[in-house]
């Protein structure tokens, strides 16, 4: 029996770490992982509130988030492979052709 504020604060901390990682790193794959970290933080909030309100919907939502995350990773990593083939690098700062 812990106060529900604790897992929520943990979720906020994990989310912000994801943000900071996203902004700091130039390695595209690490950036991807930071995205996953943020998804994870969101999932934690869902589960906490599902527990708090004693409903199943929160868990259902997590299932959907996982599905979309899986899909996103599949496509994203495929993109990485393709980009690496042409640029020989996964440095995200080198993918800057689309600019004004």
């Amino acid at each position, binding site marked *: 029996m812990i106060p529900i504020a604790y897992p929520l604060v943990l979720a906020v901390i994990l989310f912000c770490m994801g943000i900071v990682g996203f902004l700091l790193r130039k390695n595209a*794959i*690490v950036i991807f992982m930071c995205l996953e*970290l943020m998804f994870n933080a969101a999932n934690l909030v869902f589960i906490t509130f599902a*527990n*708090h309100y004693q*409903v*199943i919907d929160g868990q259902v939502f997590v299932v959907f988030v*996982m599905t979309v995350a899986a899909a996103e990773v599949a496509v994203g*990593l495929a993109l990485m492979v393709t980009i690496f083939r042409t640029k020989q690098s996964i440095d995200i700062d080198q993918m800057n052709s689309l600019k004004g």
Partner: protein
Amino acid sequence: MTTGLFVFLTLAIIAITAAAGLILSRNTVYSALFLIINFLAVAVLYLIMGAPFIALAQITIYAGAIMVLFLFVIMLLGAEKPKEIEQMKWQRPLAFVLGGAILVEGVYALLTRVSITVTTNPASEILADPKTLGISLYTKYSLPFEIASVILLVAAIGAVVLTRMPKKDKGQ
């Protein structure tokens, strides 16, 4: 300090440490492994909060399948240790400032709105049962479920199309 709080704090420290390792590690493979640790810690938290199915799904799908895919790609590309030199001089300080700001604001919002006396409920039989989840998925959420399956299919096809080797031009 109750057992529950002790377990939570341990898991929280593990999760935060793993996240920090993810961000700070120079080696991409280590980052991936730190992320797995983070996922596992969070999975245990799910278990505590009465969502055993999600906890197991987290371990098999996230920590298992997805992270294996990550590792596979990292090693396929040989991109374990790319050079990272920051060229945008405002990026790094601003990242910390803004990340900190969001953090402070988020925690502030929580602590002012959620009373510390409200505690988690003990795991209930019904909510922990995958059957309940399944019934909800196939009845109330059947349409989103179908859409999710289509998204997965599209992603699978997309991945194949994207990574296909371009055919060499037949003698022009």
